[in-house]
């Protein structure tokens, strides 16, 4: 029994080591980093963080990322809610094929689509806007949101719908005031996964932006190549990209584990 409880502990330790190293680096001066190995920062400095928070090209990267990620989560959920309802309640022509087709969109390598995406969004005059990235990320987030929401909706008995009709509710009123609140947890989980996959994706986000909507992760790669190799600054920027995710996980911690379990396959 003792040994068994050690397994998660060792695993978490393994997960934390590289994160610790990034954190430690972010508090070191560039001289200390290049000067040699030290387990803890010898002279703590906040200069790296200060550099980020005072330079608009850095902090706008964060704002841009947060804008398109939020936009994407909203669009994905609004589109996925009715679709998931249809999949969970009705049989219709081609429903199974449609469902599998949706899933196949997760399989297309993003590297394959980068160039056509650039051409498509340039042609639509959306290049370098937050909306372009938000829409492009729908490619893999909508299928996932439909999949998760469908699972949660199938767990709600059909009697709920029928009772509401008998009570004289119109469909939109029933859907918004009764049905959606009863799958709150599912909406939370779907929003979490949309946020997650949009936040971590870089290839498409980088392809579709230049200046105005450039994501933080892309700012990192470009700064690293132009201003030489400032490891401390890079580490600080990396640490800051972990924080929004950590906050979101904290809020949905009780639901994450259930998220996929209820989905169908």
């Amino acid at each position, binding site marked *: 029994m003792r040994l068994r409880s050690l*397994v998660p502990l060792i*695993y*978490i330790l393994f*997960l934390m*080591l590289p*994160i610790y*190293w990034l954190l430690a680096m972010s508090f070191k001066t560039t001289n200390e980093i290049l000067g*040699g*190995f030290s387990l803890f920062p010898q002279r703590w400095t906040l200069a790296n963080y200060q550099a980020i928070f005072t330079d608009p090209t850095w902090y706008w990267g964060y704002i841009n990322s947060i804008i398109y990620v939020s936009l994407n989560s909203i669009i994905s959920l609004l*589109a996925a809610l*009715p*679709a998931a*309802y*249809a*999949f969970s*309640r*009705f049989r*219709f022509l081609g429903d199974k094929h*449609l469902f599998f087709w*949706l899933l*196949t*969109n*997760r*399989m*297309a*390598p*993003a*590297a*394959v*689509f980068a*160039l*056509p*995406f650039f051409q*498509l969004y340039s042609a639509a005059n959306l290049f370098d806007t937050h909306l372009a990235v938000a*829409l*492009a990320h*729908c*490619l893999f987030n909508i299928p996932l949101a439909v999949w998760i929401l469908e699972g949660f909706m199938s767990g709600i008995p059909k009697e709920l719908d029928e009772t509401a009709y008998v009570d004289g509710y119109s469909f939109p009123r029933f859907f918004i005031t009764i049905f959606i609140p009863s799958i709150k947890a599912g909406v939370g989980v779907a929003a979490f996964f949309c946020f*997650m996959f949009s*936040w*971590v994706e870089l290839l498409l986000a980088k392809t579709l932006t230049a200046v105005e909507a450039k994501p*933080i*992760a892309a700012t*990192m*790669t470009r700064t690293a190549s132009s201003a030489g190799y400032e*490891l401390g600054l890079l580490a600080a920027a*990396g640490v800051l990209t*972990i924080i*929004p*995710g950590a906050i979101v*996980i904290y809020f949905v*911690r*009780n639901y994450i*584990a*259930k*998220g*996929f*379990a209820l*989905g169908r*396959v």
Partner: protein
Amino acid sequence: MKTENQRAWIFVLPVLILVAFNALVPLMTVVNYSVQETFGNNQFFWAGLRWFEEILQSERFHAALGRQLFFTFTILIIEIPLGVAIALAMPRKGLWVSVCLVLMALPLLIPWNVVGAMWNIFTLPKIGLLGWTMNNWLGIPYNMTVSPVAAWITVIMMDVWHWTSLVVLLAYAGLISIPEAYYQAARIDGASNWSVFRYIQLPKMKRVLTIAILLRFMDSFNIYTEPFVLTGGGPGNSTTLLSIDLVKVALGQFDLGPAAAMSLIYFVITLAVSWLFYTLMTRNEQ
């Protein structure tokens, strides 16, 4: 029981439009490129199936595909059993569960290039925690930029670090859905730990494990950013996975035709394997 209702299509329409816009238009662009040749200046010439033949016979593609298959197979072999083992060892109730879940989910929410950069910093021979420990403390020569073996071990370790948690979360979700009565019945029958796992836990986890394997297969087969940032595909070509090679052809050499043909072959392989696996795993349910 679901009712037959064709008007359900109206509900699905927004999803259909959004996904089709993002999926079909770029896909058709790729198909279009794959049968043409260009010498720049936006002039295109019909090339037929030449690119496809060339790529299917090219040793470079075979090598990249081989590395890709080796990578995907290795990480599945490690991540799936490891994830299940950790999920089994996790407690079922209490504060510790929340702490575990939050900490374990953390790697999943780190942007992919940060994951690559983080592991790069972590493994630098002189100043990285792992690199320094290996070289100076344990005395094992370990340098990713020189040794292909070290590069491979690091790329695989990074993926295990990054994605095992997804398997843990899914397997754990499957485990907590098993009613306590099942375990009581097993205890009365005097079942061993192994039989509890084999006949109760594993069948109950089948559905979520199918999802886990599918997701890990698809995502690892398409992996690009993390290994690219970590090793740049090197040393030499030793860790050039399929996507990295594809981007080299498409953007580095700007050979749009061959790159497009290569992406289509790549896409079809992913699709075929996923479909086969999906059908096999859900065969008994219908």
